[in-house]
């Protein structure tokens, strides 16, 4: 592989993008906490899926933009995603085995 390719800098987002992501992360966190305190939602079956969805959104934003997985090589995405999926499978399997699905 040529040195020219090796020295190519990775295209990291600008400071403006980083600040926008921080604002979105803060907004999602505020929404999460607000949802927790809404009596109509708290204690219902809706709470967990909504919070997990919001949490997944925050997770994806940090990983894609702050950890630069979006502009970086797909190799890193594969190295990260495979054990992440395995970890999620372990959580689901253990919860199923121990009957921990009752909310």
């Amino acid at each position: 592989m040529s040195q020219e390719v090796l020295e190519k800098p990775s295209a990291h987002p600008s400071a403006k993008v980083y600040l926008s992501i921080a604002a979105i992360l803060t907004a999602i966190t505020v929404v999460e906490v607000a949802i927790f305190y809404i009596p109509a939602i708290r204690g219902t079956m809706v709470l967990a899926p909504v919070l997990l969805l919001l949490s997944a959104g925050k997770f994806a934003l940090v990983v894609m933009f702050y950890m630069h997985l979006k502009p970086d090589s797909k190799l890193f995405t594969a190295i990260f995603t495979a054990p992440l999926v395995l970890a999620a499978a372990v959580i689901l399997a253990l919860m199923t085995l121990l009957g921990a699905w009752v909310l």
Partner: protein
Amino acid sequence: MSTAAIGHYTSTGQDTRKIAFWTFIGSECMLFGTLIATYLSYEGKSVIGPTPQEILNIPLTSVSTFVLLMSSLAMVLALAAVMRGDTRYSKVWLATTAGLGAVFLGFQAFEFTQFVDEGLKISTNLFGSTFFVLTGCHGLHVLVGVIWLATLLILSARGKLGPEKAMNVEIAGLYWHFIDVVWIVIFTVVYLIQRGPAA
């Protein structure tokens, strides 16, 4: 450009240190996945209190979550400063990241102390055991991150953290952001989704 500045590249065209660190992060996913699985599997099965509903302090933890999220912002700004050779802002943002990490640890120490005062220890019940192991393990990772950032800050202060060393900061950043994403999950599954009957 010197060989040292080019880095340690493989046939994939990627830096070996970065590949190794992403592999390490993958193994950390498994570690925290197991701890979270254990917490969730035993949640609501404590035969004595205190229970999560009685003891978890959501307003306090919301603030510490915000602190950790902002530390991630400071970390990417530190990396950007190092990459453009801006020594002054490299130091400012590295110090900010480490400082916010230390503040997060302070919140956690306060929370743990409060829980012990209210009768929740690691040996009290299943909730205590799984909660302290999970959040304590995360806290230890934050501590390692703060020490790591402090060493980078010292290098920066000595003028030894130029753009040619940006990969060192990028790898420290990967570690720091991973700690952040783990907390994003813990905050949701432990603090906000509280299952099981209150004692």
